[in-house]
């Protein structure tokens, strides 16, 4: 920001750049190594200390993963839960945020306080687990979706966004005979496409990455999600190895397999990352505005 061409200033700029490039390298290199390792042979992984490009590209591990029921099932389950879950979460968040954005709605303050209080305090792990159990949702995919159906932070950000929409447009639609639902569907939602896209991605990433919910609510190893599988394949303990054997006794967690499953679980995130990045800074900042 500050122009400074003195020798000391130049020296600082160079040092500053070196450190920042170093940070970027530390961020990327582990991921690139895992990606390279997933395309290398078992022998090469063991022999070479660190590499970013395998001597010989082999896709054995990927062939194995996409040809083995355990992996394909986990992948399909995770994709379905993510898609359905995101739809549910976005739908609930939007429909709740809209009435909350109406300042004149009686009772609005009460509901808003109800929401804000959950940011400070929660029932915690065990009481929530018992609610899920009492609802009969253990070992149901809904347990991966419903307990986290609305993120109160996202809800407040979307509400703030709705409040900023020009009132005149909605008013005009109402005068033309639109019902409140009609206004929401025909005026508000089309104007909110960018923010809907952003929060769809945030919710989707949240479900895709979720490990705690399957850990708490899913016991049946036939219903494991991708993250659970990643964990069981890479964890250095006997429990995981046993659990894996119980699932598929032909499975041996070789090094290459660990690399490849990490890549598969990471890739979708990296694919949507450019879109996430475009919007998230804005989202974070709207969220930090005081109500």
């Amino acid at each position, binding site marked *: 920001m500050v122009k400074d061409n003195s020798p000391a200033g130049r020296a600082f700029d160079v040092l500053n750049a070196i450190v920042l490039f170093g940070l970027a390298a530390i961020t990327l290199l582990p991921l690139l190594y895992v990606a390279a390792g997933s395309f290398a042979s078992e022998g090469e992984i063991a022999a070479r200390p660190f590499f970013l490009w395998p001597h010989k590209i082999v896709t054995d591990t990927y062939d194995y993963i996409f040809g083995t029921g355990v992996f394909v099932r986990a992948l399909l389950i995770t994709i379905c839960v993510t898609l359905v879950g995101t739809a549910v979460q976005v739908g609930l968040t939007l429909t709740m945020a809209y009435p909350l954005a109406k300042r004149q709605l009686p009772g609005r303050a009460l509901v808003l306080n109800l929401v804000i209080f959950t940011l*400070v305090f929660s029932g915690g792990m065990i009481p929530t687990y018992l609610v899920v159990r009492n609802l009969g949702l253990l070992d149901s995919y809904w347990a991966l979706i419903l307990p986290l159906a609305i993120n109160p932070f996202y809800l407040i950000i979307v509400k703030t966004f709705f409040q900023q929409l020009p009132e005149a447009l909605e008013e005009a639609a109402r005068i033309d005979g639109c019902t409140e639902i009609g206004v929401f569907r025909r005026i508000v939602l089309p104007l909110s496409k960018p923010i809907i896209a952003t929060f769809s991605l945030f919710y989707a990433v949240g479900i895709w990455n979720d490990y705690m919910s399957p850990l708490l609510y899913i016991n049946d190893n036939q219903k494991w999600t991708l993250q659970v599988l990643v964990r069981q394949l890479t964890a250095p303990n006997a429990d995981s190895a046993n659990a894996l054997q119980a699932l598929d006794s032909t499975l041996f967690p070789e090094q290459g397999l660990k690399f490849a499953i*990490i890549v598969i679980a990471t890739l979708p995130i990296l694919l949507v990352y450019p879109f996430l990045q475009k919007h998230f800074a804005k989202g974070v900042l709207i969220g930090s505005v005081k109500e």
Partner: protein
Amino acid sequence: MTPAAETPPAVRPKSYRLLKHGWLYVMLLPGVAYFLIFRYWPMYGLSIAFQDYLPFLGYQDSPWVGLKHFEELFAGPDFGRLMFNTGLLALLTVLFVFPAPIVVALMLNEMRRQVVRRSIQSIIYIPHFLSWTIVASVTYLLFSADFGVIAGWINDIVGGPRADYVAQEEWFRPVVVLQLLWKQTGWGTIIYLAALAGVDTQLYEAARVDGAGRWRQFWHITLPGIRPAIVVMAILTTGHLLDSGFEQIWLMTTSLNRSVADVFDTYVYYIGITQGSYSYSTAVGLFKGVVGVLLIYGSNLLSKRLGERGLF
């Protein structure tokens, strides 16, 4: 308003308005139901911390035992260890994880080439979006004794028998802090960079005219410019000091490092889910939750006393 609009009886616009609100309430309903079922029902369920909860008796009929479980927690052998482990991780977070994004944001702010700066930002934000499962797995791949690349490098330099950085208890805390730094530092810069972008450039020009060098501009303009952001983040961090990040700690816990790895969050899981002591584990969770609320209100109060703006 024209007289023509006033002629219909007053009932009609009123009922129209009610109908209009009616739709809004209908839209509100699913969301409110969600909050009541999945956020407030568990809060009601906290009452089992004062009971000997038996699932077939339910919240209503399980026998009340007062503060028994809390006494058991405070007098028991685990409390000191949990407090120490959680507290030490919190201290390490305050010392290393909290300042890191501030430093990096200030460094990025000094970077003049916008294209380079944005590229670096795009890269260091990435780990925030990766799951803890991925971070833990990559850590195992890099640091484990048998295959770990980095473990091998360190061994080449230091010599001696290979350390297992992901299993031995003395390495648990350094590894956890490194993971937090790797995953959250870049993302944490966003809020400070926004604050820095909001600093009035005229201040810099005025300072330059007055002969202030780069360092003095930094000290008297840049740093005060992000102070409110630092205070807000400090309050938020304080409120979450006891939240050790369940997934991260759980994923990095092995049978060898349990003694240093156990924190309140993971303890609640082991006692509650694995061993089924619902009431006792709920009491532990409630204790942690209440301390968290006190911490966030306390730090907010403190920041106001010190003349800062506070969060609420």
